[in-house]
């Protein structure tokens, strides 16, 4: 089952857990499963139309899903989805 890394600000919905496993073969399926078991996550993670909110980056195995297939990006069974807040750069 894929694991999802939860940023600190969203851990209030996961009882403080930094990593949560959820079933699915795409980001959408995994998010649906995750939101079903952790209802508060949906509102913080997604817009009303189901898109990922603007200042959140979602990665599958380190790659930003915007450049793969968006929320329909496939996830391997041992894959990792990471949810990260957008941050301005380091070596500036």
């Amino acid at each position, binding site marked *: 089952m894929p694991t999802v890394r939860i*940023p*600190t*600000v*969203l851990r209030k919905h996961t009882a403080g857990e930094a990593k949560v496993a959820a079933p699915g073969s795409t980001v959408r399926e995994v998010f649906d499963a995750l939101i079903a078991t952790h209802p508060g996550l949906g509102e*913080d993670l997604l817009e009303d139309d189901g898109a990922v*909110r*603007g*200042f*959140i980056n979602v*990665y599958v195995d*380190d*790659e*930003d899903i*915007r*450049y*793969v297939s968006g929320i329909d990006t496939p996830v391997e069974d041992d894959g990792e989805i*990471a949810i*990260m*807040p*957008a*941050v*301005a*750069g*380091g*070596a*500036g």
Partner: protein
Amino acid sequence: MRAGDIAQAVGNTPLVALPNLSPEGYTVHLKLEGHNPTGSVKDRVAAYLIREAERHGLLQPGQRVLEPTSGNTGIGLAAICKVKGYPLTCVMPENTSEERRQLLTMFGAEIVFSPATEGSNGSVRVAREMAAADPDVHMPFQYGNAANALAHYETTAPEIIADLPEVAAFVAGLGTGGTVTGAGKRLKAWNPAIKVFAAEPEYGDLVYGLRNLDEGYVPEVLDQGVLDSRIKVNSLKALTATRELAEREGIFAGVSTGASLVVAQRICRRLPEGSHVVALSPDGGWKYLSTGAYAPGDVKEIASAISGTLWA
């Protein structure tokens, strides 16, 4: 190679192949920006920020310059501002390395610290507040100034094209977005088949921890449309690659270089065999020695011990 002053000595950096760290069948090259006058790619940006401000009449003789910077841009600006007679204030996170503070102070810059927990976003916030409160300062603002990307459009990319016309992909770190946007656009204008990848540092929980998801920040300079993908690299992978560079290629680089190298190695297999990939090395490792990043010992322990300051 002669130059009339330090601002004219910027650029024309070496492009060095990595025979020992390129995936089989591919060649990864590093553009060593540590060879710029103050030791980083940001000398290009600093020179353009000042040049464009002067050209557009935004900067008067003796006027104070104010900029949020975690170090390299500040150091580049400090050298140029010193020579040109502009006093400089840099706003930077309080967890940046001691070397950077000493360099800035030596060049005569004033330093204002922003909270470490807010990362670069905190520097941006504090600098904006200071600029709003003082109409006499000029804030070039590298995160939103087109001169940042222009420096790479007009200098970095043409140098790569001249040295390696067959380049198939370009990788650079994602900070302000100036390098990937400016160099990426120029490379694609020259050959639309060239792929552009951003290596995004994965910060520690310290930086992400207090971030409100409604207050994220995407720099105005970054044109996400130029990117073919964006891949994050954690501290351990970046540090491991950085240390391998020294051990196997004799190149002593900063940790952002390791992050770009990781991405360059990863994306090679998406290209036809025999392809050449250029990864931009923003700086050498000198300014980070005091962080312990290069100290002997177990790389996992070192990465976890310094993850809070690694990307600062």
